[in-house]
């Protein structure tokens, strides 16, 4: 496989502004097949904006954002929806549908994309997805009955149920206690190993970055500042990098 074919997501000179607030000022990124890439940056530095551009929730003002070689802004709605089935997105707030039970939350994407599946097959997939995150017992609960960590796990199960090739995690451990945060981080690694997913993990939690990252990319002032492994960056003397590891 050539290095070009190995790249699943690419952004080139990505620019995104909100009024006078210039969030991304020419950001470059390449996500290789099968790797976990952590994007580190301070709050409000544009990390979430970056991954929202990758799924067409936001459109860049300039530059290129392509997934599997397809430029997101140039896709029709149908093409974009088809591409989205290959991308899983775990939201910071988990974004479970409040009015549905856990089972209905998981069935929702299945019923819409895999309509040929029988009721038994759907049920099997739901249970399997819940087993993967260790929450089979929560199948008939409402989202309001779940703890923060459980919500994240169910959110993850809902995202994984369509077996995506790419996973985008928006601050997966934010708001969780250290133990639950570590469990979620380990789960991200387990998902990478089991499903061979390529993932971008947006975080400012160094513990999470240490556990999940194959590479870490530091985003400062809307630009790619530095890329390296956890150890390389930790040992850096750069005054802009050191505070992340303090």
């Amino acid at each position: 496989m050539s290095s070009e074919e190995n790249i699943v997501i690419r952004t080139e000179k990505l620019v995104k502004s909100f009024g006078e607030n210039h969030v991304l000022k020419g950001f470059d990124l390449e996500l290789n097949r099968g790797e976990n890439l952590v994007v580190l940056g301070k709050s409000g530095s544009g990390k979430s904006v970056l991954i929202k551009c990758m799924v067409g929730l936001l459109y860049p003002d300039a530059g290129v954002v392509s997934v599997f070689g397809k430029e997101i802004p140039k896709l029709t709605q149908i093409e974009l929806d088809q591409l989205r089935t290959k991308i899983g997105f775990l939201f910071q707030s988990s974004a479970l549908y409040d009015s549905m039970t856990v089972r209905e939350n998981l069935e929702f994407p299945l019923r819409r994309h895999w309509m040929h599946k029988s009721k038994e097959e759907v049920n099997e997939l739901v249970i399997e997805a819940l087993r993967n995150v260790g929450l089979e017992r929560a199948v008939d609960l409402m989202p309001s009955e779940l703890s923060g960590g459980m919500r994240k796990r169910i959110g993850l199960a809902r995202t994984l149920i369509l077996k995506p090739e790419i996973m985008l995690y928006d601050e997966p451990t934010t708001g969780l206690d250290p133990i639950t945060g570590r469990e979620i981080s380990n789960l991200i690694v387990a998902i990478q190993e089991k499903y061979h997913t390529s993932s971008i993990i947006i975080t400012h939690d160094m513990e999470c970055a240490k556990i999940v990252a194959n590479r870490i990319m530091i985003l400062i002032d809307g630009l790619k500042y530095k890329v390296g492994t956890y150890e390389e960056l930790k040992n850096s003397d750069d005054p802009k990098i050191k505070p992340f590891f303090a």
Partner: protein
Amino acid sequence: MAKQSRRSEFLTEVGNISAFTGKFFREGFKPRYEWSELFRQCYIIGYESLPLVGITAFIMGLVLTVQSRPTLEEFGAASYLPAMVAVSIVREIGPVITALICAGKIGSSIGAELGSMRVTEQIDAMEVSGTNPFKYLVVTRVIACTMMLPILVVLADGIGLYASYIGVNLKGIVSWNLYTTQVFESLTFSDVMPALVKTYFFGFAIGIIGCYKGYFSNKGTEGVGIAANSAVVVSSLMIFVIDLIAVQIADILGLT
């Protein structure tokens, strides 16, 4: 300067609601059709609103009858009571009061529900999962409101007229047959049809404004409250504006 900015804000809002309505007509008739969600919304909007609408209609019919009697008696026209109340309820009070009740109950609930879905990223999650949230959330709710409101109004009219029958009999004896004969003899095509047609527009206005306010709710819990509140205020105002326009059109067409 402030006045100018408020005017421009108002015009922007009108423009945005018009664009949102345009999107509804573009998206609403294209497949995929969200039948199960549409039926679920019809149940929530129609069936679950029935008790409130029914009680309001009953009280409205009874009070209108009791309060109209003394005035009619003064002119020796107490026998016209069923006819007068029937025309009032069917032409104006039934549709408008029911629509206002629904604006309060349904408009605020749609505004708050979609607003909180926006704030908690549920709408984004739906979009990312390859489901068109506009079709799933907006189109279904607007169609359900448009279809259910006329049914609620017809039921409210019926309940209001029955309450009026009780009101008539509080001070006097009028048989059910005589009452219904007087009611239906007084009602004509031009009383019923314009009143029924305008209820579709009332329902559409409640649905589209509730959805618009919720769908574009600003971030934060405060935004959810504002969405629910402004959905009620704007849709209530729209009901009166539509009523005014409906009266003018009915007048031009000679249906008054």
